[in-house]
C-alpha cells in the first residue's frame, strides 16, 4: 500500500529526461555539459524538428538544415525537379504563403538552432576562463551568427542598400520572456551588428580549439562565417582576409580533380571540408529511411524519393555553359543520360536499375555520392557539407577583385579552377566586376546544390532567370523569370510568429506577392 505522497513525484524513465534529471546528471558528470553544445549540431539534423510541435506534424521536408539548403536551391534558378506530388521541394514559390508548412519550417528551424546556441551561452560564463568554456562559448556564438546570417538573407534583401530595412527579431541568451513575445523586427544593420560581434568573439574564443571532428565549429569555420558576412557587407578586404584565414587555420584544400571525377561530397572526412553535419547511421533522420537529404537529393540512394523520379537536376542553360573540358560537366548526366562519373563499372548496378528506366532523366545530378560510395545503398547516412575550401577560395577571389585588385582576384580564381577543375580555364573579363561575375558562375557550378545559389542572386541583385534565351529545363509550369529584388523573392515571416509576437503586426510583415506563373518575365 502506498501511503505517502512520494508516489505523486513521477518522472519519466527512458529517452525523455526532465530539466531536473538533466541537472542531476550534469552535476554528477560535468562532462555532460558538452551535450548542450552537441545539441546545437543535433538541432541541425533533427527529424521533424521544426514542425513536430504543431500537432505532431511530420512533414517529409522537415529534416533539418540540409532540407533548408534544398528549399533554397529549388526556389532558385539552377536546380530543377519534376512537377509532381512527390516533389517535396517544389520550385513554385508556394512556401512564400506565410501560413504554409514550408514557411513555418524555415522560420522555426533557424530559431530552434538559435535557442540551442543561447542555451549554451546561458550555461557558460560571459567571461569564460577555461579553454573548454571558451571553446563552448565560441562555438555557440559562431553558430548563432550562422543562423542570423541565414535569416537576414531570407527575410530582407541584401545588406547593401537595405541597412535600415526591417529584418528579423533578435533573441539572445539575455532576452526575457516578456521581450520575446513583444519583439519587433530589428533592422538589417542591427542584425549584422550582432552577427559581427558574435563572430569577433567566437574567433578569439576558438583560438587553439582542436575539435574532435569537423562536426564542430573550429576557428577556421568561424573565420569562414565572418568571410561570408563581410562579403555580404562588402567589406571586401576583410572578407578576403577572413577567407584566407579560414583556409590557413583549417588547413582545408579543395577537392582534387581526381576526387571529383567520381560522385563525391558525401563525407566530412574530405580534405576540403571545414565544417559539416556529421550524420550517423543511428541518427533519426537516417533511421527514418527517406526523410533525409540523400532520400530527396542523392541520385544513388536505394531508398528515397529519387527512386520515384524526384531527382534534382541542373537547369539546362547553366549545364550548357559548362565547358566540356571542365570535370564538373560530369556532375550531371548529359541529354543522353550519360556522364563519365558513372561510366565506372562500380556504378553498373545503379545503371542497371535506372538506365533504361523512364524516370532516369537528362541533367540529373551525380555530384553527390552514395553512402560509403555504394550505389543503391539503402542507408542514407551521408554527411552534409556546410563549408569547404572551394567556397573560401572563391570568396577570396571575388573579394580581392572587388577590393581594388582584380588581377590578384583573377589569379586566385584561375589558380583554383585550372588546377582542380578545368585546365583550360581563363577569366576573359579582368575588370573587378568581370572577375566577380566569373566567380559567380564558378560558385553556381561548384557549389550547386549546397545552398548558396539563391543567396548569391539576392546578394548580387541579379534577376532570377529560369529561362535563358528560351532555354530551360524547368517543368513547364515553373518556367518564368523574376526581376531583381522582386517582393516574391523574400519569404514572409511565419504566421505563427505574427500571431504570437505582439511586436510584429501583419502590416509589418513583408508584402504579399503573387506567385509567378509560367511565362512571366519572358
Amino acid at each position, binding site marked *: 500500500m502506498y501511503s505517502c505522497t512520494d508516489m505523486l513525484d513521477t518522472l519519466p524513465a527512458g529517452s525523455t529526461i526532465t530539466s531536473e534529471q538533466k541537472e542531476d546528471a550534469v552535476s554528477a558528470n560535468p562532462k555532460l555539459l558538452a551535450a548542450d553544445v552537441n545539441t546545437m549540431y543535433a538541432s541541425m539534423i533533427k527529424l521533424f524538428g521544426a514542425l513536430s510541435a504543431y500537432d505532431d506534424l511530420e512533414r517529409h521536408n522537415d529534416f533539418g538544415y540540409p532540407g533548408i539548403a534544398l528549399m533554397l536551391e529549388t526556389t532558385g534558378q539552377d536546380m530543377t525537379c519534376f*512537377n509532381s506530388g512527390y516533389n517535396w521541394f517544389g520550385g513554385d514559390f508556394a512556401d512564400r504563403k506565410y501560413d504554409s508548412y514550408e514557411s513555418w519550417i524555415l522560420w522555426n528551424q533557424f530559431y530552434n538552432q538559435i535557442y540551442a546556441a543561447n542555451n549554451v551561452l546561458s550555461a557558460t560564463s560571459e567571461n569564460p576562463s577555461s579553454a573548454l568554456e571558451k571553446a563552448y562559448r565560441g562555438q555557440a556564438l559562431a553558430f548563432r551568427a550562422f543562423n542570423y546570417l541565414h535569416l537576414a538573407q531570407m527575410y530582407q534583401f541584401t545588406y547593401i542598400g537595405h541597412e535600415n530595412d526591417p529584418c528579423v527579431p533578435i533573441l539572445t541568451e539575455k532576452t526575457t520572456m516578456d521581450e*520575446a513575445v513583444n519583439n519587433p523586427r530589428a533592422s538589417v544593420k542591427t542584425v549584422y551588428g550582432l552577427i559581427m560581434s558574435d563572430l569577433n568573439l567566437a574567433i578569439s574564443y576558438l583560438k587553439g580549439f582542436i575539435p574532435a571532428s569537423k562536426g564542430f565549429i573550429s576557428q577556421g569555420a568561424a573565420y569562414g562565417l565572418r568571410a561570408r558576412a563581410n562579403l555580404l557587407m562588402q567589406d571586401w578586404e576583410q572578407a578576403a582576409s577572413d577567407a584566407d584565414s579560414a583556409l590557413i587555420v583549417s588547413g582545408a584544400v579543395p577537392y582534387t580533380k581526381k576526387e571529383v571525377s567520381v560522385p563525391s561530397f558525401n563525407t566530412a572526412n574530405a580534405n576540403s571540408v571545414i565544417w559539416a553535419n556529421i550524420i*550517423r547511421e543511428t541518427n533519426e533522420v537516417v533511421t527514418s529511411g527517406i526523410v533525409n537529404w540523400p532520400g530527396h537529393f542523392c541520385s544513388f540512394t536505394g531508398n528515397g524519393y529519387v527512386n520515384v*523520379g524526384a531527382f534534382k537536376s541542373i537547369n539546362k542553360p547553366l549545364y550548357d555553359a559548362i565547358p566540356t573540358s571542365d570535370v564538373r560537366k560530369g556532375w550531371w548526366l548529359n541529354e543522353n543520360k550519360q556522364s563519365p562519373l558513372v561510366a565506372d563499372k562500380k556504378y553498373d548496378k545503379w545503371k542497371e536499375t535506372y538506365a533504361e528506366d523512364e524516370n532516369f532523366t537528362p541533367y540529373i545530378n551525380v555530384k553527390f555520392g552514395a553512402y560509403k560510395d555504394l550505389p543503391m545503398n539503402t542507408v542514407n547516412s551521408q554527411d552534409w557539407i556546410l563549408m569547404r575550401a572551394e567556397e573560401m577560395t572563391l570568396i577570396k577571389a571575388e573579394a580581392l577583385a572587388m577590393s581594388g585588385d582584380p588581377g590578384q582576384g583573377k589569379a586566385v580564381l584561375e589558380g583554383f579552377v585550372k588546377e582542380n577543375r578545368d585546365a583550360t580555364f581563363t577569366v576573359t573579363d579582368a575588370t573587378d566586376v568581370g572577375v566577380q561575375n566569373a566567380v559567380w558562375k564558378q560558385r553556381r557550378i561548384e557549389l550547386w546544390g549546397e545552398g548558396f545559389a539563391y543567396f548569391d542572386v539576392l546578394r548580387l541583385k541579379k534577376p532570377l532567370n529560369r529561362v535563358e534565351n528560351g532555354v530551360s529545363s524547368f517543368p513547364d509550369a515553373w518556367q518564368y523569370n523574376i526581376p531583381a529584388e522582386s517582393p516574391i523573392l523574400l519569404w514572409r515571416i511565419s504566421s*505563427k510568429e505574427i500571431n504570437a509576437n505582439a511586436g510584429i503586426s501583419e502590416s509589418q510583415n513583408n508584402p504579399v506577392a*503573387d506567385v509567378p*506563373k509560367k511565362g512571366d518575365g519572358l
Partner: protein
Amino acid sequence: MVLAQTSISGKVISAEDGEEIVGATVMVKGTTTGTITNVNGNFTISLSGTNRTLVVSYVGMKTAEVLATPNMIVRLESDAAELEEVLVVAYGTTKRSSFTGSAAVVKSDAIEKRQASNVTNTLSGQIAGVQGINSDGAPGSGSKIRIRGIGSMYASNAPLYVVDGIPYDGDISAINTTDIESVTVLKDAASNALYGARGANGVIMITTKKGNSRVARINVDAKWGNNSRGVDNYSVMTDPGMYYETHYQALYNSQFLDGKTSHVAHDFANKNLLDAANGGLGYQVYSVPAGERLIGSNGKLNPQATLGYTEGQFTYLPDIWYDEVFKKNNLRQEYNINISGTEGKMNYYMSAGYLDDTGIIENSGLSRLSTRLNVDYQAREWLKVGSNLSYTNSKNRYPDEQTTDDDTSSANLFFVANAIAPIYPLYIRDASGKIMIDSNGYTMYDYGDGATVPKIRSFMGMSNPASAIALDNSIYADDIFNGKWFANIDITEGLKASANFGVYAANSRYNFSLNPYYGQYASTGGVANVEHNRKFAVNQNYLLTYDKEFDGVHNVGVLAGFESYAYKSQNLWGSKEKMYSNTPEISNAILNPSTESSTDTYSTMGFLARANYDYVGKYHFSASYRRDASSRFHPDHRWGNFWSGGFGWIMNKESFLEDQSWINLLKFKMSYGAQGNDDLGNYYAYLDQYSVVMQDDDFATTLKYKGNKDLTWETSHNFNTGFDFSLFADRLGGTIEYFSRTTSDMLYYKPVSPSLGYSELPVNVGSVRNAGVEIDLNGKVYSSRDLKITAYANATLLKNTILELEESLGGEWIDGSYIYKKGSSLMNRYLRKYAGVDKETGASQWYKEVTDSFGNVTMEKVTSYASATQFETGDLLPDVYGGFGTNVTYKGFDASVAFAYQLGGKIYDNTYARLMHSGYSSDAGTNWHTDILKAWTPENKDTDVPRLNTSDQYTSSASDRFLVSSNYLSLQNITIGYTLPSNLLKKYNIEKVRIYGVADNLALWAARKGLDPRQSYSASGNYTYSPIRSISGGVSISF
C-alpha cells in the same frame, strides 16, 4: 350451513406478456392451504368454508388477491415499478428519488441489441447530452464520447471511465458488452464531483452483471453476420475516358486561358497529359491507332480508343480500386455464454465470450476471447467479500496507417481507394492482360514507382496500399486482466466500512513488419518491428459510510474515504531491416538494429466525503467534497479542492399536487459544484523535457517539451437544474434539464513566438462555457396484452462560448484555420471567403477587405488567394443533437429501431475539397467529384465551380466554399426478434429461445453522399477506417 368442499382450477399468467407463470404460489387467504402452479401455469385448489379469496404470489410480481371462480385466470402485474430504481453513483448506489444530480442509464437490453465490440459505440443517440465521435470504424475501435460539449481546448475532453467502481484507463474494447449490466453517465457536479481531479468531463460508470435468480440461469447467445462499408464513397468519376478528358481540359486551359492559341494549348495538353514529371498522369490505359492522339482537338477521347494498352511485357488496364479493396463477405461471429445465480450467501456470474470481427478490408479484424467471474459471499453476518475478475485475450489485426488523420499517407487504403483517379491499374497485368503472380505466389500489384512496371503514378506513386495490406503485418496481441476485490463490513447498525482494491494489467505485443518484396521497403529487404507494452494500474479506496433514520422523518447518509491510483506504462521496442522471410520477428532480420525503451508513471490520491439528508423522502440535500492531488503538477500546485451541493424536491408528494393523480412523479432538482481536469496529455507538464540523442558519437539533449512549473488544475464549474417526471400512469417519463458548465483556468498550450525556439507553453488560462438544455423522453405509446409499443427521444441543445482568453491575446487567437475569440465558439474556423467564379476568366475569387483612406471597409473580389482576407465562419457546432427510437412487441415478436441525429451545424468537407482540385500538378491523378463537370468554361460561365487549370494552385485551398451542413440522420440499429412460445420449450427444460436479426449502421443521410459528419466536430475526410455496417442473425437461449 355446510358448504361442500369445492375444487377450483385456474391459470396464472403474466399481465405483461400473457405467458404462463410456472411455480406461482396460490394460497387461500388466511389459511395454510396452498399450491403451486404447474409447468403450464395451471393450479387446482380446494376451497372449504366461506373463504374464497386467493392470494397469488410470485417473485418479481405484485401479489394479487382475487376471488376464486371456476377456470379463473389470474394476471400478475410485474412489481418492477414498485421497486424503486437504484442508481449507480460515485462510490455507491442511491435511490433514484433521492438523487439530486443528473445521470442517465443505458441498460443491458439496449446495449445487447447492438453488435458493438466496444460499448462506447452504443451510446450515440441513446442519452441526452452524450455525443459519440466516430473517427475510426475499425473493429474494436470506440467512439470518442463527449458529455455536454467540449470544455477544454487542449486538455482531454474524454470522460473518466469507472468500471465496477474502479477508474479504468484501459481499452474499453476489452470489456465484453454482454457482460455489462448498465452504463450510467454522470453528467453534473452533484454526481461526479467526488471523482475530483478527473471528473470534469463527466463520468461513465460501467457496471458488470451479477447473479440475480435463485435457480442458476444459463444464457447462450450466438450470432453470425456480414460486415460491409457503412458509408459510401463520394460521387467520383469512374469513367477513365472522362478523367483523361477532364485533365486534358485542365492542361489545355493553363495555356489557352493564358492567351495561347488553341493549337498551342492542344499540343501542350497532349504532350503533358501522360507526363508525370510535368503535371501529367503517368499512365496510358487506352490504345489508340498509331500516330493518333488520345484526346482530339475537340477535347474528347479519341473515338477509336479502346480500353487497355499493351506496351512491352505489360498491359495497362484501370481497376476500380474501391470495388477491389473492400471485401464482400466479411464474417462477423460472436458467441456468448453466461451462468448466473444466487446460492445461499453466494452470488455469482460467470461468462465466456468469443468474438471474431473481420472488418471490411483484408488483414484487419478483431478476435477476442473474454471471460469474467463475479462472485460475492456473505462470509459472516457482518462481512461480505467478493471479487470480479476478467481476463481478455485479443488479437487485433490493425493495419498501419488506416486511421491516420494525415490524409496524405500513401499506405492508407481508405484514402487512396476513395481518391485515386479511375485510370490506374491496381494489379500488374502481363502482355496478354492476365494479372501476374510472382514466384512467391503473391498477386502482383502496381506500385506506380517505375520499378516493376516502367510507369510513375502521379497520385501516391511508390505505393500500393492493397498490396501493403496483403503483405505487411500489423498485429496486436493483448492479454488484459482486470480485477477487483472488496470487503464490506457492517460495524454497527448503519455504519459500514469497505475496502476496494482494483488492478488493471495489460500486456500488449505488437508485431509490425513492412514486407521485403514490394514497396518502399523492398530495397531495404523489409523491416521487422516488435513492440511490447505493459500497463499496470492499481487503485485502492477505503470508505466509511453511515446511514441512519431519525424519528421516521430524517434520513442521513454520510460517506468518508481515501483513494489512490497509480498507473505505469512501459514500452520496449526494437527493429531490424532485411528480413529473411515475411515473418514479423526481429530475429528474422539482420541489419540496422534499433531498440528503445521507456517507462511513464502517473498517480493521483484524494480524500473524499459526502453527506446526504432527506426529510420525509420529500426534500433531498446532498453535498460532497474531495481533496485530490495529481502527479502531473508541481508539488506546490498539486492539490485541488472539488465539491458539490445538490437539492431535490419530490413535488408530487406535496399536498398541492397530491390529488393530481396523473402525476406519478415530479421532481425538481438543482446542483452546483466544481470538478477538475489534469489531463494535458503530458505526464510531467510542469517540467522541461529533453530527448537524449546521439550526436557524432556523443550525447545531445534536444528540447522535447517546454514545461511550466505553475501549471495546475483546469476547473469545471457545473450548474444543473431541471425536472424528472413520470405522468399518466407512468406512460410518459422523462427529464428536462438546463445545464451550464464553465471551464476555467483552462489547460492549454499558449502559442508563443516560435522565435523563442519553441512554439507553445502549457498554461492555465481562459474560460469556456457549454450551456444548454437536455430533454429525455420515453413513453409507453400503446400497451395491450399482445401489443406493446414504447418510444424514446432525446435532444440536446448546446451552445459553446469562449468567455475568456489570455490577456496578451487581446481577445482573439488565430491558430491556423481556427480562430478563438471571446464570445464565440471553440469551433470557429478562420477561412477565406469564397466569392464565386470570375465570369470572364473562370478563376476562383475570394473576398478581400479593403480599407480606404477614410477608414471605410469594403469587400473586394480578388483572384489572389494569398491576398484574400480570412474571416471567421461563426460557430460550426450543431444547434441540437440526439436520438430517437421505438420498441414494438407483438406476441412473441419484437422489433426496435434506433436513430441518431444532429442539426444546425457545419463541417469542413476535406474530401470534397480534395476532389474538386483544379488539376494542379500535385493533385494530378487525384480523382474528381462529378461536380467538376460543372466547372467554368467559356461556354458555361454561369457556374459556381471554377475553371480547371493546372496553373491554379489554390482553387481548392481552404475556404468557406467547402463548409457544408453537418446535419445528419443515421439509422443506428434495427433489431427484429421472435421468442418461441414457452409452452413449446418446457418439455426440454428451456426457459426461453429467441431468434433475431440485427443490423447496425444501416444508413446515413447527410448533406453530401460520402460525407460522414459523425467523424469530427469541424472537419471531415473519409480517409479513416470506414464505419462498418453489420447485419447478423442469431439465437439466444436461456435455460
